[in-house]
């Protein structure tokens, strides 16, 4: 495939050579004319579809989709299970946590609570040598911290100032010694082959190992992990910071999937639904729960029935924890009333009469938590103006009491706890919900999933993702009808969308400004980048204001241009583009022959520019952008030419960086 593209690029370059510099503008003009006629030609249709259904076209994708036929390609994308994605699977294979269930994750990468339990002897140390080392090091770390705290506390009174300084001096001397020893040890280990290196590390005492792992930073760390298997690298990180491993692997996976998956629409929809049913990785146990949430709740339902997706989120530990529903207790439930687990009916009756007068003095955990009830209607289904009231919020919260978790911090699953559940009838949106325990919640979810407000809200958001920030109402109407007629079948709603004239209208072409995630991944795809470590890219996204899995409020990230177009964001994008193509971004390689689609750049910088425009923007570059770059090519800093070295080839990295930072590339 790579060869075909390269060949195509070469053919293009040769044909352009004849047309000299006039070619790109001529192409541009021709396209503008077709625009005004209100129709896209097949090539433009392919580009448009790629821009909307994927994280951005790679070089050669337009030709491939045109060859397959745009409509057929869309149909393929709508059935991801039929698309072979084994190349991606290979890339994901080293990220072990992606395949673990929550219990395994917690066990392998223990949270502080678990460490504490082991330290206090409430739980035993694992026997597996790697796991054991992780636990031992964390216990060591915890004890170091406690020691430091005690020292600080004893030195707290101002009178003890002199003693305090003496203590820090001693401490400093000890630390210097530790560091020195750790450095020596690291050097010694470095001389061993990676396998033996790991074995030696596991044999060290927890104290020495902590000193070693803490001393490995920056270039030293890079050198140390060189040649290690991904699992050995993971172990090394787990020894130092077990809690960081899980989120980091998740973020890496998200970027790898976006960049390399063949099932692009499925990834786009997974991102869409995750954002719609947003949970935040920084909130307590959610750090451990999101792996399963994305894998088992969101992705399998991304193009299925909306009700199935809704129920799956409602029962997911990640959501139950994030929106606090697991803590919500019915004010008249057995737990709130202090009814013992073994109570019989007669006891219950007596106790209820007695309690009626002393309601104030009931147990502490008697609170109804409305957080989930509100977001369920406001953000997940009906929308803020979807026709519900505060009373509906409270009633829905009563319905969902008892939907809770078994020990969430240890990977606990969803469970329905009858004793937390509020007894009695509830009324939601005018419907009477009869007492039925867990089934009450399912009844409410069914009701919400089939409400016309939900159909409209979901259709509007989908149209905002795929068409424009302010989608045409007629399109939203037709999508809502499909939603209601086809039992909330998301694939059917998408078909209505992709077959609509609005989707293909000239107004929709490049109408969307990319979010930082869309921008970054589309740049990686366009430049055919080779990602060896996605963590630095994840950090870039954080700097651009879109940390992966890092949106605190349940609203999820905005899809609108106004959120993402601002000065620092634009500068951030330009600088990212330049750093990426210049190879200054750690963990990512951009080979100039792959960006170029040719072994070496044509000696004429103008031709190099034409080739890059074709590869990075599928030729869809404006005359203004082309002229601006073309005019600047005379500058040796951009063309790469030096007065004393006329044979030096044009600077592909800079020209490619300029194109990726151009206005056109900010849109899809």
């Amino acid at each position, binding site marked *: 495939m790579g060869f075909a593209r390269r060949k195509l690029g070469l053919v293009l370059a040769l044909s352009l050579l004849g047309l000299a510099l006039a070619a790109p503008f001529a192409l541009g003009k021709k396209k503008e004319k077709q625009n005004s006629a209100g129709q896209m030609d097949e090539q433009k249709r392919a580009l448009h579809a790629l821009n909307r259904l994927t994280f951005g076209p790679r070089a050669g994708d337009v030709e491939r989709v045109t060859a397959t036929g745009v409509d057929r390609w869309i149909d393929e994308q709508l059935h991801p299970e039929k698309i072979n994605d084994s190349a991606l699977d290979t890339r994901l294979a080293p990220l072990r946590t992606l395949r673990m269930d929550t219990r395994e994750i917690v066990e392998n990468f223990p949270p502080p609570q678990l460490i504490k339990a082991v330290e206090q002897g409430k739980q035993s140390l694992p026997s597996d040598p790697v796991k054991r080392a992780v636990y031992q090091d964390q216990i060591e770390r915890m004890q170091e911290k406690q020691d430091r705290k005690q020292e600080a506390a004893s030195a707290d009174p101002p009178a003890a100032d002199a003693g305090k300084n003496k203590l820090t001096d001693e401490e400093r001397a000890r630390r210097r010694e530790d560091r020195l020893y750790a450095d020596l040890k690291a050097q010694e280990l470095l001389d061993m082959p990676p396998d033996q290196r790991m074995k030696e590390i596991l044999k060290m005492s927890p104290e020495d190992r902590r000193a070693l792992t803490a001393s490995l930073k920056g270039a030293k760390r890079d050198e140390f992990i060189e040649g290690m298997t991904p699992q050995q690298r993971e172990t090394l990180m787990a020894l130092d910071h077990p809690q960081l491993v899980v989120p980091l692997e998740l973020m890496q996976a998200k970027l790898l999937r976006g960049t390399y998956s063949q099932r692009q629409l499925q990834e786009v929809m997974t991102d869409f639904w995750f954002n719609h049913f947003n949970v935040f990785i920084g909130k307590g146990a959610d750090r451990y729960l999101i792996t399963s949430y994305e894998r088992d709740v969101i992705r399998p339902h991304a193009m299925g029935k909306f009700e199935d997706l809704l129920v799956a989120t409602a029962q997911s530990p990640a959501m139950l924890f994030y929106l606090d529903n697991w803590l919500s207790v019915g004010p008249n439930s057995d737990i709130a009333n202090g009814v013992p687990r073994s109570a019989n009916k007669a006891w219950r009756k007596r106790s209820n009469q007695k309690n009626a007068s002393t309601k104030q003095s009931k147990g502490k955990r008697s609170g109804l938590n409305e957080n989930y009830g509100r977001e369920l209607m406001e953000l997940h289904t009906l929308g803020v103006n979807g026709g519900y009231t505060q009373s509906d919020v409270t009633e829905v919260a009563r319905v969902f009491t008892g939907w809770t978790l078994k020990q969430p911090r240890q990977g606990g699953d969803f469970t329905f706890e009858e004793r937390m559940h509020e007894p009695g009838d509830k009324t939601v949106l005018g419907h009477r919900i009869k007492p039925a325990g867990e089934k009450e919640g399912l009844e409410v979810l069914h009701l919400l999933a089939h409400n016309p407000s939900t159909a409209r809200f979901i259709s509007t958001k989908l149209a905002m993702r795929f068409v424009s920030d302010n989608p045409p109402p007629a399109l939203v109407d037709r999508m809502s009808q499909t939603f209601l007629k086809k039992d909330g079948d998301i694939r059917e709603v998408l078909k209505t969308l992709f077959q609509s004239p609005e989707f293909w209208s000239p107004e929709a072409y490049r109408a969307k400004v990319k979010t930082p995630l869309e921008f970054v991944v589309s740049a990686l795809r366009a430049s055919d980048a080779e990602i060896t470590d996605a963590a630095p890219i994840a950090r870039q996204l954080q700097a651009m204001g879109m940390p992966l899995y890092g949106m605190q409020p349940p*609203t999820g990230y905005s899809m609108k241009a106004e959120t993402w*177009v601002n000065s620092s*964001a634009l500068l951030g994008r330009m600088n990212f583009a*330049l750093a990426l193509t210049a190879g200054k971004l750690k963990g990512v390689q951009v080979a100039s022959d792959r960006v170029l689609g040719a072994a070496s750049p044509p000696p004429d910088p103008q031709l190099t520019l034409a080739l890059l425009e074709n590869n990075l923007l599928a030729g869809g570059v*404006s005359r203004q*952008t082309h002229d*601006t770059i073309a005019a600047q090519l005379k500058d040796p800093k951009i063309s790469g030419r030096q007065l004393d070295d006329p044979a030096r080839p044009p600077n592909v990295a800079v020209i490619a960086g300029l194109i990726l930072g151009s206005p056109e590339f900010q849109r899809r």
Partner: protein
Amino acid sequence: MSITRRVFLRDSALAAVGTAALPVFLRRAAFGAEQTAKTRRLVVIFQRGAADGLNIVVPHGEPAYYAMRPSINIPRNAVLDLDGFFGLHPAMPAFEPLWKQRHLAIVHAAGSPDPTRSHFDAQNFMESGTPGVKATDDGWLNRALHAAPADNSAFRAIALGPSLPRILSGSEPAVAMNNINDFGVGGRNPNAAPIANTFEAMYAHSVDSVLHGTGQETFEAVKMLKSADPSKYTPAPDADYPGGRFADSLKQLAQLIKANLGVQVAFADIGGWDHHVNEGSTQGQIANILHDFSQSLTAFWTDLGDLAEDTVVVTMSEFGRTARENGNRGTDHGHANVMFVMGGPVKGGKVYGRWPGLDPSQLYEGRDLALTTDFRQVLGEAVSRHLGNKSLDQVFPGFENQPGKFLQLLG
């Protein structure tokens, strides 16, 4: 020192009309609101993590305060007394001169009326300016510019930090700046200039109206910044900034303001207030951060010099902390809190707001300081009277915010 700068301004400026040698701010004041409006600015500071207002402005005249905080109270003889009832935490002597010059006012028992004790919900609400409504997608400080006197400066709204915070997001252009030195294409590499110029020309010629507009603003900002060369506005010799990110943010903000870049609203935040364990009293965690906080703000004030006359600084935090200390010598999430208001037009030297008391029966939900002043009353007054935006129903929709309800903090 006994005459405040503000009093001096009022009395002498009017008498001196027409004297060209007057400092700029005096001339502006003399020539009336039309000219002063342009440079008036509001700086908002967010203490993220829920600061413990009761140990910041200490109600040392409340016996209940000492009863509820046996190990973390600030002893009466240690507070910096303000008015016989309230006193500043002893780590904040930097605020005393400002208080005495009446440039610093305090509003106690203030905050968001929403009952949430979730950090992120509460921060969200205080930034959107619509407590209880999560669907609001822009921030009140951005909306505050809708009807404020226009100014075309690219630096009209600025946040110090890596991304634009919610409080400044919305339809008015706003710049987020992490570091003055990194704000540009290709960092400080001199070879990057032609690349930056190419980007600029590309965006300048673009027919894409959204990107064209922001691109222009961006490069205007980059250029303005370059020509204003804020690096030459080094801190005033007596502006004693401590180390740390917060002080750095304010130092850079002062540079931008002094470089005359047209800043109207600005935002900076300081984290590290969530003291559930070992909060400390006169020493310890809270003392350290309060020193940092008050010293940075005072240095900022000093650094601004005459420009401080047109500046109002308001501080806020998402909620206060429990009136009682917990089992770990710390405090848990509470409700009402304290706000500082600092600036030229501020009628300082006074604690505003009704004090609800700390008797168990007076506490909110039996545990927290009750709320008597909605944060939007304080901010509404600053937006309306200082920034000159009278459409408060758009800045704080759903909140009755007539001038009659203002605390009359600003003169």
